[in-house]
């Protein structure tokens, strides 16, 4: 598959009064053309910061320290702000978590839809309006002409998120970054939105980076999964592999904490005990070792490299248990095998 976006050794820090917080600490991954990649992990693991870094929209006091974000051959981190503005909304667009707060309450849906079309493509108002209507039709919003004159508060949550998606699609971007697009929606609406994203991505051959902590959403949409923990990628592979043969104890923990329909009611969910680490003073060695049931001596001192497995070279895990000399633990958690 042709690579669209390539993130290499991205490091983003926030400079707080207490010191430097390395929110993203050396993250590398690729997104192929038309591929959907999910980034999962707990709150504060650096998912959203990674997304905002790709768009170069890190708020103060954050700063992208180093790395490369190569989109179709261009390193976005080297662009000047003016050039970057031409990339945002045109080549890369974003869908945010909360459609209640992500739309400007005092501007009409139509205005907010046309805005990026007018900005990025040399079109007149009538053409922009036509495009806005088309975008709303694409996301299956009924009577789109009427919606243009409406304000966000006149739409339901699901409708607003559709409008957000329409906005993100309006300039036919190469990549959509969806930051928790369904978290604040009803479960029934969640399914609709995911289905919609899936269809649209297939129709328009748009690549998607899906940021979520909802593993159900991941299974429904993603081709590949990146598991992040404390600013680093801990596991990375095709979605089927991640579900069928997870390698990292953190991924095991994530999977075990998800309720499954095919489990009996008596099956208890197992939480991951403890708190994500304080990124001002991240643990030495493997960052997950203080919470890991299988931590060994080496985990406390040495950072694990990415091990591939015998079966496929595309599935990587940063865990010492994958070392040939490591003891074989019951790698597959109960909840998944059962």
């Amino acid at each position: 598959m042709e690579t669209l976006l390539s993130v290499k050794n991205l490091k983003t820090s926030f400079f707080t009064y207490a010191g430097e917080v390395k929110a993203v600490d050396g993250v590398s991954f690729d997104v192929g053309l038309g591929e959907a990649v999910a980034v999962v992990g707990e709150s504060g693991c650096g998912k959203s910061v990674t997304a905002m870094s790709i768009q170069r929209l890190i708020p103060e006091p954050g700063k992208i320290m180093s790395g490369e974000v190569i989109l179709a051959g261009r390193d976005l981190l080297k662009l000047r702000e003016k050039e970057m503005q031409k990339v945002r909304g045109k080549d890369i667009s974003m869908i945010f978590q909360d459609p209640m707060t992500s739309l400007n309450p005092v501007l009409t849906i139509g205005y907010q839809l046309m805005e990026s079309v007018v900005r990025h493509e040399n079109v007149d108002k009538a053409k922009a309006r036509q495009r806005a209507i088309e975008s709303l039709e694409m996301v299956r919003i009924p009577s789109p002409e009427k919606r243009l004159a409406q304000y966000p508060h006149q739409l339901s949550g699901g409708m607003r998120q559709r409008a957000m998606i329409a906005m993100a699609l309006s300039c036919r971007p190469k990549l959509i970054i969806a930051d928790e697009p369904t978290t604040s929606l009803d479960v029934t609406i969640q399914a609709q939105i995911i289905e919609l994203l899936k269809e649209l991505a297939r129709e328009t051959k748009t690549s998607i980076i899906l940021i979520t902590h909802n593993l159900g959403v991941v299974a429904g949409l993603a081709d590949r999964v990146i598991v992040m923990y404390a600013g680093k990628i801990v596991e990375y592979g095709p979605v089927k592999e991640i579900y069928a043969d997870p390698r990292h104890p953190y991924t095991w923990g994530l999977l075990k904490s998800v309720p499954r329909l095919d489990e009996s009611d008596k099956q208890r969910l197992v939480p991951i005990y403890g708190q994500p680490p304080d990124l001002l003073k991240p643990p030495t060695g493997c960052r997950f070792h203080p919470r890991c049931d299988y931590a060994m001596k080496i985990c406390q001192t040495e950072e694990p490299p990415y091990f591939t497995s015998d079966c496929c070279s595309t599935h990587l895990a940063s865990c010492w248990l994958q070392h040939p000399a490591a003891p074989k633990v019951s790698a597959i958690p109960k909840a998944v095998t059962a």
Partner: protein
Amino acid sequence: MARYILQRFFSALIALWVLITITFIMMHAVPGGPFATEKAVPEAILRNLEQKYGLDQPLPKQYIRYLGNVIRLDLGPSYKFKGQTVNDFIRREFPVSAEIGILSIILSLLVGIPAGVISAFRQNKWQDNAAMFVAIIGVSVPSFIVAPLLMYVLALKLHWLPAAMWGMTWKQAVMPVISLALLPLATFARLMRSSTLDVISQDYIKTARSKGLSELQVVWRHVMKNAIMPVVTYLGPLIAGILTGTFVIEQIFAIPGLGREYVWSVTNRDYTVLLGLTIFYGAFLLMMNLLVDIVYGFLDPRIQLTGHKE
């Protein structure tokens, strides 16, 4: 909308009536009267005067008569200035007060709003610190200190501007306008700063940026309309207060405006003038508040102006 305005109009009338009644009672509760002077006035003349203006009648009767006149928009004659009515005063002096008032409101908006927005976008940088330093001075130093200071420096020491002479030269307006504008200017800057800070942390500003808008477009289209609300709120009573004259500034710069007239009417016990100007100011204030509420509806589509349903 029309129903809403009508409702507000009637509630304003009630508010005005309460205002008139309270002012009337308080005014008459204070000892002395418009014709009490240091010089002893012969009893007969005093009685004559009181009879002429109806002050010898029992208070309830005076009150009813006055209300009747007000309904006919007649605010009565001045007791102190023969042959002049309160309506004359307003016609003559309101334009003067309004002129300085409008100028200072324009000045305070033009400087205060950009200062607040810039402060917010440069939060805790030197631009912010400088603007907020000036704003704190503006908010905390009263105009009756600013005005004499300006006068001392610009008029007496540097001789750049005249200290008085209203109407002779445009230069006369400079100092009153500045001293009048300082407080609203500082208030606008502070209101605008805090509301802008609030707005730029909102998700929809992130959305706007992620669309690739330039910083200026983000500020102009997405920040301003949301952040201007507190300023609009403050603008209503401010316009009423400043346009109907400010007591201190007009006194200091010898400007023949309504504010100065107001102060005089109190010391002169000029009942009708005092009452009349109070009503005028009150009506103006109520009108401005209504206007502000209507403007809200245009600025924020979530606010709908509708009357109560029965």
